[in-house]
């Protein structure tokens, strides 16, 4: 984990990766949970998880809101949430965010940065409701007889967002309801129109609505009754002008799926770049790029200062100072050059010996340093951001080892706002050239199909962002595929950055002893037993244990509860018990075959010349232990077990002892 200082560096030219993330994390995400409080939401039913416990949809919805808050706060400590309930008769307190919203809409928690006390409050509410399932009904008395017009709900959401969310944030409303026809009865047409209109207003204010419709066997949710005419296509599936209608995935058939569905939408969809994809000269379409796999790191620590009654976050600022006067250099006076190298005192015949290495004397009228713009152009080679196709190759040409970093995912964009900028510094004028490429989708779609059909990948040169460096990459098509669990593998192209010659390391080991076919077959047996036949690497099964360990401590500390390391379960650990049960005997057979293998017992390694006793560390620990007890082999043991071999014999023995004690 990088300390904060490093994090906050202003260096703009060196680490584009750094900027990738800082660019996003500086952005707040705001979620307003708008939860229906109708009688149906409060209707008690058996808890599916616990026996003899009653629960209701509202409870589940609030619980999901709490869980999402807890998850979000860890990823984005500046993110904000709020909770609004509708169809309740509870009155808003005067003065707050909800003071003047529409009737029968109640602001339970106004939009604020997620905060431990707020989450605790919600937890307490939920705890009380566990004790007494009817308490939610008393806390939020449902509106009986009629329902709030959905238009009012959207308007209220708009106002709450307006009052509570920073302008630059990404803003979303999670709408949770089980009522498929909220405004039935006379005037429905009018109310539908008004709902649609107010929803449009929301969208225009930059607020997305993500609906979660609860559907049960007894009470199926029929979207055509009301919502399909109200929701905008892009509300449902947030993509540009998306012509498809409501997707199944937002209709939650089991209330337990609510949280899972919310987790999918936990992070707002953000594009990393929006650039042209040049298939050939003058054959260009627009694409947006996303990072679908990005390492989620622990939060970085910050510096705080005690200002008496509370702790305040300390801001930081990085400046550059010269070596001689220790004065701050103004940004516009900074120029770029090569490190001057270190001074070797004695041999240095230079007069300004004390200064060489840190200063360079330049005649007044000449120039030896580069400007920032020049320096940047050396990285980009003067290219503009774009992905330029170079041609196609067989799919098999992309080898396993041609990898250096995570991939990106591109998806066509009919209206990429691709801006080409040039500065006119003196006049503070920015010239922009914005380009739209209509027809991008059909072209992209055809491209994916052709590549997939012919089993090809693309090779391209890409400059993904203005301050990054060009890379060669493989374009791997992905055709769309529906998977279980409501998650569709979307159509698109994965961009896999390829290593440069500079990134490729030579193999340091050129030869080794090989196994016989018999030994191979023996290994095959236990490998077969431990193979998941239709499996693959399952990311979903492996939550990052170190991150969870950190976050649980953070959470415990925030809620002033205890963190018990004993309770922590690391699910990434291999299930060795099952492995031994399935394949233990086969592994044992393989081990004994290995022990009897002729090649394995060679003691004279061909290229060493010197005879030495081979450490057969594939042997069982028990045998080595006996060697150890004989007082020999300390050094070999250390070497064989990847322990340091430096030091005196006593040190070695200590190390061996430590190792054996620990294992």
């Amino acid at each position, binding site marked *: 984990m990088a300390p904060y200082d490093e994090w*906050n*560096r202003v260096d703009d030219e060196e680490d584009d990766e750094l900027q990738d993330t800082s660019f996003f994390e500086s952005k707040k995400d705001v979620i307003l949970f708008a939860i229906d409080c109708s009688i149906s939401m409060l209707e008690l039913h058996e808890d599916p998880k616990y026996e003899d416990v009653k629960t209701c949809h509202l409870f589940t919805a609030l619980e999901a809101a709490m869980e999402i808050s807890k998850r979000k706060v860890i990823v984005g*400590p500046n993110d904000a949430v709020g909770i609004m309930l509708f169809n309740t008769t509870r009155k808003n307190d005067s003065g707050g965010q909800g003071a003047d919203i529409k009737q029968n809409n109640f602001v339970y928690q106004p939009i604020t940065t997620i905060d431990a006390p707020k989450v605790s409050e919600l937890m307490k509410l939920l705890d009380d409701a566990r004790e007494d399932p009817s308490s939610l009904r008393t806390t939020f008395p449902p509106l009986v007889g009629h329902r709030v017009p959905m238009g009012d709900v959207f308007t209220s959401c708009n106002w709450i967002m307006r*009052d509570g969310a920073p302008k630059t944030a*990404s803003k979303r409303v999670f709408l949770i309801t089980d009522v498929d026809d909220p405004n039935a009865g006379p005037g429905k047409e009018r109310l539908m129109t008004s709902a649609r209109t107010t929803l449009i207003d929301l*969208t225009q*204010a*930059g607020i*997305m609505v993500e609906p979660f419709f609860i559907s049960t066997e007894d009470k199926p949710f029929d979207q055509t009754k009301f919502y399909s005419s109200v929701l905008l296509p892009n509300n449902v599936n947030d993509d*540009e002008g998306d012509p498809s*209608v409501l*997707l199944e995935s937002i209709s939650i058939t089991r209330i337990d799926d609510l949280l899972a569905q919310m987790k*999918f939408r936990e992070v707002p969809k953000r594009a990393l*770049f*929006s650039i042209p994809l040049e298939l*050939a000269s003058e*054959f*260009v*379409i627009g694409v*947006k790029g996303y990072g679908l796999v990005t390492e989620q790191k622990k*939060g970085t*620590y*910050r*510096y705080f200062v005690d200002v008496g009654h509370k702790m305040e976050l300390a*801001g930081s600022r*990085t400046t*550059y100072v*010269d070596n001689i006067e220790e004065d701050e250099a103004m940004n516009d006076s900074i120029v770029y050059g090569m490190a001057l190298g270190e*001074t070797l005192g004695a*041999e240095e015949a230079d007069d300004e010996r004390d200064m*060489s290495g840190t200063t360079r004397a330049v*005649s007044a*009228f000449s*120039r030896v340093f580069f400007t920032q713009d020049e320096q940047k152009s050396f990285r980009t*080679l003067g290219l503009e951001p774009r992905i330029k196709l*170079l*041609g196609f190759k067989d799919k098999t040409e992309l080898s*396993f080892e041609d990898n*250096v970093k995570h991939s990106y995912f591109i998806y066509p964009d009919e*209206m990429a706002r691709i801006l080409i900028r040039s500065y006119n510094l003196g006049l503070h004028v920015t010239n922009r050239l*914005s380009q739209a490429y209509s*027809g991008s989708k059909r072209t992209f779609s*055809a491209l994916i*199909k052709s590549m997939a059909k012919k089993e090809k990948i693309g090779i391209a040169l890409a400059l993904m962002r203005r*301050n990054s*460096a060009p890379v060669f990459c493989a374009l791997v098509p992905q055709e769309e595929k529906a998977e279980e669990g409501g998650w569709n593998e979307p159509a698109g192209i994965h961009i896999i950055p390829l290593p440069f*010659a500079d990134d490729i*390391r030579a193999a340091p*080991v050129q030869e080794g002893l090989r196994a016989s076919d018999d*030994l191979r077959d023996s290994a095959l047996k236990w490998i077969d037993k*431990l*193979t998941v036949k239709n499996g693959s*690497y399952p990311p*979903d099964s*492996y939550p990052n244990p*170190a991150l969870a360990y950190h976050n649980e*401590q953070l959470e415990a500390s925030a809620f002033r509860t205890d963190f018990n390391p004993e309770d922590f379960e690391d699910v990434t650990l291999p299930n060795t018990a099952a492995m031994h049960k399935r394949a233990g005997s086969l592994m044992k057979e393989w081990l004994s075959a290995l022990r009897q*293998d002729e090649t394995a017992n060679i003691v004279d390694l061909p290229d060493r010349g010197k005879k030495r006793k081979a*450490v057969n*560390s594939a042997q069982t620990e028990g045998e080595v232990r006996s060697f150890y007890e004989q007082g020999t082999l300390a050094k070999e043991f250390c070497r064989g077990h990847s322990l340091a071999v430096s030091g005196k014999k006593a040190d070695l023995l200590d190390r061996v002892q430590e190792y054996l004690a620990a294992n």
Partner: protein
Amino acid sequence: MAERAGYTVTMFLIDVSASMGETRDVELPDAPNGDKRTIEMTNLEWSLQYVKLKIQEMIYNGRKTDQCGVILFGSEETENMIHDRDGGYDHVKEFIPICHPNAGTLAKLSTLKASTQTGDPVDAIIVGIETQDTYLAKKKTWTRKMVVLTDAQNPIETEDWEATAKKMSDLGIMLIVVGIDFDDENIEFEQEDKPHMKRINEQFFHEFASKLESAVVGNCEYVLDEVSRPDAKQVKSALMGHELRMGDPVNHPDEGIVLQVKASKCTALARPKSWKKFAKVQKKDKDGDATTLTQVDDNGVEKVLFSELNRRTEYYLDKDDDEEDAPKPAPADKDDDMDVDVDTQKDVDPDKINRLDKEDLIRGFKYGASFVPCPDGSFARLPTKKGIDICGFFPAKNFKREQAIGEVQYIWADPNSPANQVALSSIVKALCNRKRMAIARWVSKDGMDPKMGVLHPIEFDNVDCLLWVQMPFADDVRKYSFASLDNLISKNGEKITKHPYIPTNAQQDAMDNFVEAMDLMEAGEKDDDGNRLSWFDTRLSYNPAIHRTKQAQFHGAVVQDLNTHPLPPPHWELLKYFNPPRRTLKRAHSAIEDCKQSFNVKQVPKRVTRARKDGHVHTNDDDEMLLLDQLPKPTIKSSQPARSQTAFSQRTSLSPTSNKKQPAKKLDDDSETESEGEAEAMLLDETPAVATTKRAPPSDVDMLMTPARSVSPTPPEQEVDPGRVPGRIVGLTNPLVDFRRNLDAGDIVTKAVEDMGWAITEIINRPFSRRRTKEMIECLKAMRYTSKNEDEVDAWNNFLEDLRHTCVEEEPGNKDFWSQVQKVGREISLISHDETKLKAGKPQGVPESRAVDFIQS
């Protein structure tokens, strides 16, 4: 490759005889205007570039054991160890003793001038051998190199040279002769009118070199080109010890498997060497006035001192504690500015900051708005045990290549242990045999955070190993949803098969041909058997950023003035994969043309010039800002709060007040969330579906394509060339025509009205707008008529109030235009109840009296 990095002494023997002072014209990169440029320099200056670049390389690599010394021949003075001892060896001077070079070394070389003497290269070679050998007396294993720089114009004493050559061979010295205007086959160079003496001397050097184990003679021009050729440093990574485990060897000692393995990097991301920041050293006097620090060198030339800059981080308490929420005035042009190049540094108002001592700060984490102290900067770490644990196996065909997230590592069996080698080999062979891969958990050191990844078997010619790559944790995968490209479903739930988003069969055929034609599998060079290889090889693809940056850094360090010695263009080797191979392009020409025709991708470029927000703020966005501004600025006009109320009160149609928010949002919201882009797309989509369908009964396609509402992608203050600003359906050139056409075509009225209002405001705010007054009045009339009849009463009324405000109260305003509007009178004023009450529903608009008053005031 066998060479050990570092542990090298290179002797540079430089000819400074009078003849080296002859000048030549050297080509420079073309001037910005495309003119050819040349610079005149002496042969000495020119050839010294080679030495300097070589020395710069040593500085760059920073190895202390990479050393060099410089000896001159043909110098005025004589000063060398053999002369001191035995005499002779005249005009040979030890110029820079052997050391690890630094910038001072380069500076010193720059002072060299041709002398009035002549010198003998063989003398210099002998002095060089002796100097190097003395220095390396106790460092027998070091590599010895020698570089001779000469024009070979002066007599060489060739007697007994074989003995010298033998001595060099014995010592294993590698020789490079860099000859000025030497004939060289590599660049097909042959000097015309070569002097006889030079011809003989060149022959001598070739003969001399042929007697050595390792020697080359090269033309200076060729060598200078080669020196800028990218060269990937071959790095063999260190082998790191590890345990590869299967099962639980502790509790099941007879079944659990532990192999001793070594991991080494297979790929490692290399980055361009960082630049150092420099600035002129400023000396501050007592009054705080700064003067640039200068010094005068030996020749009396005044020089400015540039100092390397160091980073310093200051901490402060921002009294304005509303850190992120504070409305920032600036980011108007940042909306999709990926390069946040202005950097993350906040502009801090010096009056507002309290500097803090780092010692007073407490480390901790933010938990939302709460502070969680953590003095160590890290909580207790997950206890882990070093090693690679295999968790299971799966068929390799199911591997998701795109999920690999890091560098690749080799995993070798311990090279000293036959048993481990055989054991690993059997596993690798088994995995290859069944086409399987393994899932594994990697802990690099006890207590380090685990990583998950996969192991891929690989059988090399003489050794088997595994390759590791990290895979994402659940936390690392983003499951964004994307609209289906194929399954377009109408509102009625029917699948749509014909749509501008779906390629037709003809288009698909064109793309198939394109993919075929652009195939690279046989587009590369021919191999020894005459078969074409595939084009593009990662092993030959140099990172252009690294090598170009290095070239620039070297150049800047070596030349005296970038103005007279601009950076040469990048080496061609860096750019060889920047364009598809010409053969392929030629072959694909017709396929490409077909695709262009068939797909008809329309490009809509608009050149837009906009003033920065810090210039002046246009009148209309002031208003627009307010609606979204939760903290209205004190300068609001009294009518505003009322209006923001109406904006959100019930409406049955889209009021322009809400539309007004768009530009404001645009300015403020620079988030890259999806919401923005898509609305634009809908709007600007130029598919015929939108343009031709009638408004009344929407067909399926129409419903799908309905642009609904749009967020304008361009801020309102933009000026455009003819035509429309993206996102606006009414242009500035001919607004009335656009407006009517849009109404006829059935576009949403609200949008047309809104954009008409925008266009009018925009036009009357421009210089020389008077000549369009009449046209604008016509526009107003049309807009009002539509507003009244199409339920856009509020839109009109709000617009008109804004317009008056803009004309009368803002600067520069357009009072003249407003008075023209007033002349039209009541019929162009606000729409009143009386005018709307005939229609069904609640009457809209303002009281009649207000409408009358408004236009007169």
